């Protein structure tokens, strides 16, 4: 599927009618969603033929995009039943085969090493402190970036990148058996009032772990500063 076709399809999806501010339900725009998933598929081969999980899927935009790009199995997880009703309609509209789960991303532990890719447009933690890190931790859990039995926390995520630490080493060895990538898409509330501006992409590759940070040009500076502080 071509990028333009993907974007045209995504733009037809139903979005939140009454977004819940406390859940930070911002819609993911068709422009940014289509480019993020298209890049993940064409440049990194992370979507087609893979098991993809959309954490905090909302209306299912990223999941449907993954499905359109021939992901073989897509799972969308969200806490909000209303959002999932919309997501189900969106998925059926495109004859997608997305499995939705109503659950809290904080305690969603998927068993085994079955997920190849996580895509998400997570909350930024503006309403509930730490919600953004909780999503990142859950993404690591889902992808089994933590040794089994380890609790996820920010400090442990940091440890993953210290090459000399024990966790770092076991992380690297566990990477050999699974293709791991995390995609993060952060949009800011203020940006939703902007017209879609120039699109920018930052890709971080650390120890074989690919972070996709896709953002409007305006927040690139902020993002890059924050990523370096948080993850390196």
């Amino acid at each position: 599927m071509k990028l333009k076709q993907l974007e045209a399809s995504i733009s037809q999806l139903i979005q939140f009618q009454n977004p819940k501010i406390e859940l930070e339900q911002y819609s993911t725009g068709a422009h940014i969603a289509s480019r993020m998933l298209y890049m993940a598929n064409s440049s990194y081969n992370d979507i087609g033929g893979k098991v993809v999980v959309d954490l905090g899927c909302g209306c299912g935009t990223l999941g449907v995009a993954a499905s359109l790009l021939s992901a073989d199995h897509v799972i969308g997880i969200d806490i909000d039943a209303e959002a999932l009703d919309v997501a189900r309609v969106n998925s059926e509209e495109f004859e997608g085969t997305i499995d939705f789960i109503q659950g809290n991303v904080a305690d969603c532990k998927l068993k085994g090493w079955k997920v190849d890719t996580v895509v998400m447009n997570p909350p930024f933690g503006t309403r509930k402190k730490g919600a953004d890190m909780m999503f990142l931790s859950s993404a690591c859990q889902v992808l089994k970036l933590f040794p089994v039995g380890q609790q996820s926390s920010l400090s442990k995520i940091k440890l993953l990148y210290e090459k000399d630490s024990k966790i770092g080493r076991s992380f690297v060895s566990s990477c050999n058996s699974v293709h791991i990538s995390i995609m993060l898409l952060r949009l800011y509330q203020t940006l939703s009032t902007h017209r879609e501006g120039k699109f920018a992409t930052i890709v971080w590759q650390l120890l074989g772990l690919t972070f996709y940070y896709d953002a409007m040009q305006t927040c690139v500076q902020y993002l890059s500063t924050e990523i370096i502080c948080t993850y390196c």
Partner: protein
Amino acid sequence: MRLLTHNMLSCNIKGVTNGFPLAIEATTVETKEVDMNPDFLRHIFPKLEWKAFRDASHSLGVDDLPEQVDPDMLLDEEFLRRFHHALLEVHLEEGVLICPETGRRFPVSKGIPNMLLNEDEV
């Protein structure tokens, strides 16, 4: 919900150590055809908990999966077809998932399992 998703779900109530696999009580099961991708089936096969998958397929009325499997079977077209059907074409639409340890019931409605936990379960 398809059985590949079921193969990843477990009961995450605090203190539960054997929350997998969730038993299935099926009320409505639907079949939706999708194209078969043999490469994907070979990719996912080694990662599946076969016994849980086979038992779950029984609960949904699919009875043609072998008890014992080995990777050589992935070369057999007939096996791939059955495997594909049970894994990706059969959907649990209405029913209940049950925690094997606590008996906690998670309802499935319109194909969506509700795995939300109560405050005292987290």
